[in-house]
């Protein structure tokens, strides 16, 4: 009876009468305090990451085998285990972040995503069967559709992951419409492509702003204050290196082109190469060289790009009255990627050599008994073992080290501002997350 009275006089809110009651109690408690609340200072609380490679390796090894046995269905549970590992070992202040999602949720999300993916793929197959001439248009259409769905999934997937991220007993959440975000992101990507990447900082800032402003921890709203000009200034040298240099070579090659080259090259393309001259071949070589050089430069510049972007994003992020700061450096990123890939290469080679030695030995030993069937099985095992090895090495030597370095580069300014946040838990489906996996343009994990 008394409970009913309480709910009559105060709005119960979305968390039910008990929550409403304790909420009022909490407010009263704060008001009752004789000592006024300490004005939050701008102290920096470093973030920590305590995850060890051994634990992750165990998860990955078991997960790989179970995935194989279940033809891949176990991947949703493996993703969940990996996220639990990363979330559970990351902390700011005394509390770690907890991942509360389950594999079953991801699996259900996958089933929902199938409902979107299947008709698209089916249509593409039908068109390809009945109209083989429209092959190119169909694949471009599917690519564009997947690109759009990928943007949708990036937002909806983030919503799911935040809704399953709990800290101090409260969940994060995300409002807003994934569809509206996907439309905007799609427009921005078109602009980025048209400007050869120069518009990227503005696109990144606009999209990050949308995502962070719709992010909530209880009643504390997220914000993003990253300045696209800053990102542009920091990244311009990289852009010049990766795009500018090859572009300049291409342009100068085109300008230096002798009269009639295009005509002769076109003729050569249609089978008449008798007219080709030596200087035409020089143009071709310059073009091919510029493209190769561009690829190499892009690969070499990638770690720097990751570092610049990560730091700029972190430093722009805020939640309620608190902010993030990051000390992640370009040098750190190069150390992770270069040492990581060197390690993968060396360990991978050694591992493959030992593994194939063992298999060849076993094959020789069993040759008399099992014949071709056994050697076939051994070949499949060898192949899977090598795949597993490289996959685990990549996860441990690159992904884990990158996460650790980035997490440990972070500090929360004014963490105390999040001490008195009030809950506003909402649920979110895992559909977007699984959709992202299905169209293969999702985020890291």
């Amino acid at each position, binding site marked *: 009876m008394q409970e009913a009275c309480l709910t009559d006089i105060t709005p119960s809110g*979305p*968390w*039910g*009468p*008990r*929550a409403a009651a*304790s*909420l009022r109690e*909490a407010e009263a408690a704060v008001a009752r305090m004789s000592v006024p609340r300490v004005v939050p200072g701008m102290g920096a609380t470093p973030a920590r990451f*305590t995850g060890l490679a051994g634990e992750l390796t165990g998860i990955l090894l078991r997960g*790989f085998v*179970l*995935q*194989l*046995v*279940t*033809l*891949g*269905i176990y991947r949703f*549970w493996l993703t969940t285990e990996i996220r639990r590992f990363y979330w*559970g070992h990351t902390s700011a202040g*005394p509390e*770690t972040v*907890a*991942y*509360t999602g389950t*594999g079953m949720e991801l699996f259900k999300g996958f089933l929902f995503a199938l409902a979107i993916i*299947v008709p698209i*793929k*089916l249509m593409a*197959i039908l068109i390809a*069967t*009945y109209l*083989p001439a429209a092959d190119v248009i169909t694949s471009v259409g599917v690519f564009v559709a997947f690109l759009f769905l990928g943007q949708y999934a990036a937002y909806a997937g983030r919503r799911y992951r935040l809704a399953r991220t*709990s*800290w*101090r*007993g*409260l969940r994060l959440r995300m409002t807003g419409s994934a569809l509206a975000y996907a439309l905007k992101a799609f427009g921005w990507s078109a602009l980025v492509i048209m400007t050869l990447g120069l518009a990227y900082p503005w696109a990144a800032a606009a999209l990050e702003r949308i995502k962070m402003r719709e992010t909530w*921890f209880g009643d504390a709203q997220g914000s993003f204050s990253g300045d696209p000009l800053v990102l542009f200034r920091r990244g311009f040298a990289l852009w010049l290196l990766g795009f500018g240099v090859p572009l300049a070579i291409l342009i100068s090659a085109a300008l230096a082109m002798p009269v009639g080259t295009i005509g002769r090259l076109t003729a050569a393309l249609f089978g008449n190469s008798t007219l080709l001259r030596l200087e035409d071949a020089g143009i071709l070589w310059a073009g091919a060289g510029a493209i190769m050089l561009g690829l190499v430069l892009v690969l070499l510049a990638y770690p720097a790009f990751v570092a610049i972007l990560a730091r700029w994003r972190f430093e722009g992020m805020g939640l309620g009255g608190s902010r993030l700061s990051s000390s992640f450096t370009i040098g750190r990123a190069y150390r992770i990627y270069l040492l990581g890939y060197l390690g993968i290469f060396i360990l991978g080679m050694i591992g493959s050599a030992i593994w194939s030695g063992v298999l060849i030995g076993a094959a020789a030993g069993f040759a008399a008994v099992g014949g*071709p*069937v056994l050697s*076939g099985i051994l070949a*499949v095992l060898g*192949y*899977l073992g090598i*795949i*597993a090895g490289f*996959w685990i090495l990549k996860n441990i030597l690159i992904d884990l080290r990158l996460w650790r370095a980035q997490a440990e580069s972070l500090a929360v300014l004014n963490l105390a501002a*999040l*001490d*008195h*946040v*009030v*809950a506003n*838990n*909402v*649920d979110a489906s895992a559909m977007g997350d699984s959709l992202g*996996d299905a169209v*293969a343009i999702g985020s890291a994990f």
Partner: protein
Amino acid sequence: MTSHFATYYDGVTSRRREVELSLHPDGLALFERGGGRIETWPYASIRRIEGLPGPGLVVTRISEPASSAEPRLEISDLDFASNLAARAPLTLSKGLTARRERRAVVLWALAAAASVLAVVYFGLPAIASRLAVLVPPSLEIKLGESIDGQVRSMLSDSPMKACVNPEGARALKEIVDRYEQAAQLHVPLSVVVLDHRLVNAFALPGGRIYIFRGLIDRAKSADELAGVLGHEIGHIRHRHGLRSAIQAGGLGFVLGTVFGDFAGGTAIVLGSRALIQSSFSRDAEREADLFGVDLMLKTAGDPMGLARFFQDFNAADPGAFAWLASHPANAERERAIREAVGQARARGPALSAMQWTALRSICQKTE
């Protein structure tokens, strides 16, 4: 009554509180450090939260109707935790629920994979044969034409020439016409001999059959060649090209969409796809063999010619790898043909000796 301290988040605010716990008959009671009771959690509604690092027990209370608050209680005292576990439906062993769930997932996933594969294995051929009949012949012919160019360019670098020596062509037309009439096909038949040393013949959707010179050279009698021709006509009559296209598409679609997408997944998916497809293909070959036998018994030619062809054609038998091959083992095919012929007698030779000689010279003129 023993009491212990624990860290408590009420799930409504982010405030961290040190609380005192006590086990009451009706539930776990939480007290402020000063002494005021905060609330009591009925034992039945307490659950362990998994996936958190470090020792100790972390529990929550199942949310009440119309509430989504997730209160959280971190108990570091293990003795108190086990006392609590004795009263509440809790397991103290870390990860036990996760292990149980994992086992269930693996078992169910195995069952799901097996049933999807079974549906594909048994259902897809049935669906494909129903669908293939619905495809209009004009479309089948168009499909055949588009495959035709690809196949011919795949087989050899230079465009292959067709054999057109007039006497040979007349002999070939004679037998083709007879078989075409008896077979009652849905598409017009067009048989072309290609000037290439391969010992092979194949049929494309839309009624086109290619026979390679190598096969004619190798055949010891007109009956052997006629048997192969009857077999290829069987492929066309049963729309095998169309059916295998539908089966391959459906198979790739199901396996690629439901399974796959993980490290090593491509190998598994490609492997199972190849296995199932070659099993479909073996079935189609058997069907075509039987059709060829039937066709010859109805018109002319000795079906045992086909059997003899397989007997002579001493391709290495796959042995233990029979389940991987796209065609049934030759010995098995020969036996099946023998059984199908049974006591039946051939109505007459496929071609006269003179016609057979003429046919063998068909590649003396090419274009």
